[in-house]
């Protein structure tokens, strides 16, 4: 494949960022918006060309049918040592091609949607510039040829997320949310960095292909290196996963994601639902052969993922803000992907069932990106219509917003895993993988899947039904304008049919195409459970009634904990403010001013005092000087005499 198209995929968004960022203020909103869309549209076309060429051109498949990993270009950027070199390159393999499609599609849809959603906002050009920056960083991340390139773009997506969450920078809540997001992910990135340092120290390479195609060699490099009873490879992998936990909002580093909803809603759809938050999943998938080696590391992933999935689903059942419901649902769904990657192997390189977990995770990443972006964009349309995030201000919206209603319903059905919508296919594979790893994990994840169906339909019924005559700040809500409707319809269509893709033909852990089998038992039972959950939600929330209040009063403590997200934010506030800020920073600053600086000043004061004390000798009286001179001379004379005699 020629170098031009892949290079353009990266350069075009970067150029749009620089162009809109520097010259944007001189342009009208309309021009900036259309330029942004044009740039992104071109990038999307190029990305589709690249990905489809990769999938369908036999040139990229070996004789045995294995899809090849192709490095289109790889330019040295920074040389540390002879072996440790950061290169900026473009790696094309099944998962990076998949992510190219996902990112550009969602980003393009969000660009179009924002034409309507952000119309008339102050800083419209800046918004498009940041979107382009984000797209550039995210594309750079997924095509990374080495782990350090990934780290570079990892930081860049973090920064663009910071800028976009804080887009409404005059609002306190937005500013502190952006700060929180950056610092929490930065903290996780520290783990990522240390993981990279350990890994590269032993393997002497940053290159993904070198590491993942030769897991046995990596294992050899780590021979004998242990720390606290665990192999250092396990530690490195866990630390790298910690980086992924930060970006993908796994417990306990999830606290930034719900707050990140302060950003404009299309941004939440793009960054905090479809693309950036799955970077952690992508990272683990990228290094999957190494995780498959270490049972400890992959089990850690399963445990973290399973707990997070359940926790987030519980919290989502009680929230009022629709964007927060979606945020927790995102956390929960990403945890599904994580668990799925963890259960794909059994340690020591043994892959379970052709790595169905790996394939399912990527499949779910793909379908989830589509339907979750759809749901967020629906939420955006609703917020645009009623100027509030709370479902208490919505109710009965089906009458006013038919398009939003239908597309949102499709999104909800997809995420609940109802046949024939896309979520059914991917979630079914995940559950199958879980059951084959351990029935307990399988049952646990089925339960979370039921909760998912419940809270999504709770939200759906409360928004679109519940009661007929809603309070809407005195005006009738209107359907979204055309630029907002197009992406909704497009994404809904994708969510309807993309489940029928033969996903196993495109992505699998060893890049060999294989056929997916739907396990009828699991499929039927999970659809059955989901339908039950939807039925309960229908009973409780379709028409105004007092069942929800009764339920809440039955378990008040539980409801309270869920509503307050199990008080994680308060815990973090306590640790950061009370312990770190007041317990470490302040004492250190005090110590510096009073002890260290005090000592330095003390030297000056002592010198001063001594000088003051002896300055009396310098009196200016001749008699005094003669007197001292005589005494001195006598003493010296006496010493001289003694010396001569002695």
């Amino acid at each position, binding site marked *: 494949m020629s170098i031009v198209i892949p290079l353009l995929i990266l350069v075009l968004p970067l150029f749009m960022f620089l162009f809109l960022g520097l010259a944007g203020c001189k342009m009208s909103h309309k021009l900036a918006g259309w330029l942004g869309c044009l740039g992104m549209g071109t990038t999307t076309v190029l990305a589709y060309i690249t990905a489809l060429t990769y999938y369908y051109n036999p040139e990229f498949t070996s004789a045995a049918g294995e899809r090849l990993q192709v490095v289109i270009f790889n330019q040295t950027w920074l040389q540390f040592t002879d072996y440790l070199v950061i290169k900026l390159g473009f790696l094309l393999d099944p998962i990076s091609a998949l992510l190219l499609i996902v990112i550009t599609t969602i980003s393009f849809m969000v660009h179009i949607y924002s034409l309507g959603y952000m119309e008339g906002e102050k800083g419209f050009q800046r918004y498009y510039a940041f979107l382009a920056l984000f797209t550039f960083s995210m594309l750079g991340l997924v095509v990374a040829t080495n782990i350090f390139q990934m780290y570079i773009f990892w930081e*860049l997506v973090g920064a663009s997320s910071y800028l976009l969450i804080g887009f409404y920078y*005059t609002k306190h809540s937005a500013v502190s949310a952006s700060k929180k997001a950056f610092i929490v992910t930065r903290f996780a990135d520290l783990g990522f960095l240390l993981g990279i340092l350990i890994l590269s120290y032993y393997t002497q390479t940053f290159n993904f292909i070198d590491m993942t195609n030769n897991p046995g060699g990596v294992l050899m490099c780590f021979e004998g290196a242990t720390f606290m009873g665990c192999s250092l490879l396990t530690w490195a992998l866990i630390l790298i996963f910690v980086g992924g936990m930060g970006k993908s909002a796994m417990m306990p580093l999830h606290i930034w994601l719900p707050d990140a909803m302060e950003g404009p809603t299309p941004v939440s759809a793009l960054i905090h639902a479809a693309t950036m938050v799955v970077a952690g999943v992508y990272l683990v998938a990228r290094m999957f052969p190494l995780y498959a080696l270490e049972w400890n590391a992959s089990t850690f992933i399963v445990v973290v993922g399973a707990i997070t999935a359940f926790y987030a689903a519980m919290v989502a059942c009680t929230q009022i803000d629709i964007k927060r419901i979606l945020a927790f649902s995102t956390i929960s769904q990403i945890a599904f992907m994580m668990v799925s990657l963890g259960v794909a192997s059994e340690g020591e390189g043994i892959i379970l069932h052709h790595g169905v977990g790996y394939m399912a995770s990527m499949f779910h990443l793909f379908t989830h990106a589509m339907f979750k972006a759809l749901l967020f964009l629906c939420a955006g349309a609703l917020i645009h219509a009623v100027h509030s995030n709370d479902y208490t201000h919505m109710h009965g919206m089906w009458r006013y917003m038919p398009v939003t209603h239908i597309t949102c319903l499709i999104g909800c059905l997809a995420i609940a895993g109802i046949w024939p919508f896309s979520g059914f296919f991917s979630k079914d594979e995940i559950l199958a993988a879980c059951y084959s790893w351990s029935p307990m994990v399988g049952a646990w994840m089925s339960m979370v899947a039921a909760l998912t169906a419940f809270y999504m339909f709770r939200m759906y019924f409360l928004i679109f039904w519940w009661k007929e005559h809603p309070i809407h700040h005195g005006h009738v809500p209107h359907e979204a304008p055309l630029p907002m409707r197009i992406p909704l319809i497009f994404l809904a269509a994708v969510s309807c049919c993309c489940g029928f893709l033969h996903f196993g033909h495109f992505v699998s852990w060893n890049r060999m195409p294989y056929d997916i089998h739907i396990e009828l038992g699991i499929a039927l039972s999970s659809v059955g459970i989901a339908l039950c959950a939807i039925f309960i939600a229908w009973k409780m929330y379709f028409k105004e009634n007092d069942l929800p209040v009764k339920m809440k009063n039955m378990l008040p403590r539980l409801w309270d904990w869920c509503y307050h997200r199990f008080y994680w934010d308060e815990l973090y506030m306590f640790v950061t403010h009370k312990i770190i800020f007041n317990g470490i920073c302040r004492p250190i600053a005090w110590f510096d001013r009073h002890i260290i600086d005090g000592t330095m000043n003390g030297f000056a004061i002592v010198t001063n005092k001594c000088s003051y004390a002896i300055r009396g000798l310098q009196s200016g009286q001749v008699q005094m000087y003669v007197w001292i001179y005589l005494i001195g001379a006598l003493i010296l004379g006496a010493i001289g005499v003694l010396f001569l005699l002695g």
Partner: protein
Amino acid sequence: MFENLLIYFVVIPVVMLAGLALCQNVKQIRAVAVIGSCCLIGLSTWVLCEYLAMRAAGEDAPMLFCGSWEWFAPLNINLAVGVDGISIAMLMLSSIIVFAGSFASWKIDMPKEFFLWLILLSTGVFGFFISIDLFTMFMFYEVALIPMYLLIGVWGSGRKEYSAMKLTLMLMGGSAFLMLGLIGIYYHSSVDGVHTWNLLQIAQADAIDHDWQRFLFIVTFVGFGVLGAMFPFHTWSPDGHASAPTAVSMLHAGVLMKLGGYGCFRVAIYLMPYAANELAWIFLILTGISVVYGAFSACVQTDLKYINAYSSVSHCGLVLFAILMLNTTAMTGAIMQMLSHGLMTALFFALIGMIYGRTHTRDIREMGGLMQIMPYLSVCYVIAGMASLGLPGLSGFVSEMTIFVGSWEHADAFHRVFTIAACCSIVITAVYILRVVGKLLFGPVQDDHHRKLTDAVWWERLSTVTLILGVALIGCFPNFFVNLIKFTFSPAIFAVLGLN
């Protein structure tokens, strides 16, 4: 003498001084400052190109452009000059900051006297970086320090007399150590009794015996370390920076603190490799503390200049920390960190000066929402902040990562613990940078009087754009700088590693 390019780094400032003396009005003064600093930038670029060309032609002497002119024969003092990749990087940095600093002090009171001292200071700085004779090096070092006293004492703000006195006395204290060390080196510089001040000859002879090396290493490292803001000798930095006028803060944090790191490398480690290898751990502890301690202290400060002064303690601590790792990668990182820190701190101080000039306060509690009032300055501040917290694409990332990868090459627990601690500083840096950015630039406008303030004018824009370009250039094309620097290391590092 004048056929050597390097000598013009001293000649140009001296000519500028003469030119200033003849100036009649503020316009002429500005013209002298601008033309002079442009010439300096041009000269350093020229030297860089010549240097690269000579290296490409296969020249492999440790220093190029060498020249030596006798000054005081009985003590064998010469004006000896010569540069390698590191000195050239430092000369580039200094000339850029002098240029940006001249624009940042466009509207200073008593411009003639101010620029007189400022240019004298830069004479010292340039002289220091080109000298390879210890005595002239020390002399230029002192020439760079003394004007600081007057610049802060006269043009400063706040408790300026106190700060000026404190800064000068503490740095003089460092100089006393340094003088002791340099004389010691001189008297042990050769076995045959002909003593020399010349760095290259001393390093080649390698005649200082090991017991003396230990003493001299500690003395010179502390001497330069005071200027490099090493814990616990850093307390001049917050007060000094807080009181100094804008351009002086820029030059001081941007260039003068680099003299410390450069000296530690060039004198303490280059000449006493054996002791450096043996005693590096003492200073690793101190600099490791600097890195984390400075960052934590910066988190609670409310004065913008104090925040950046403590941030400098942390970042300059990282420079010395990396130098002490004694391997090529970490040392390259140290020099990159010097460049990067020089540019971004100068940018920070320039912006703080510009903000202070408008709001007349540096207390972050009294300001807020400046993004709405002065978007240009605010965006620059965000960029500086991002560079400081190590965003890829800007300079901080490159240097920090090089340092961490280099430090990680030491596999023992002691080095590991301190490396991890140093890595933790990137999180704390993010905390204090975002705290300031969030408080100062974002949020609602705090003080309604600020609403009528204006954004940057052309000379301020020129000054900041120059620095931002520098930061972005290093951040985007780091390999050019790394290759420039790396070539230098071989002799020094092999000497050290040979002892292992």
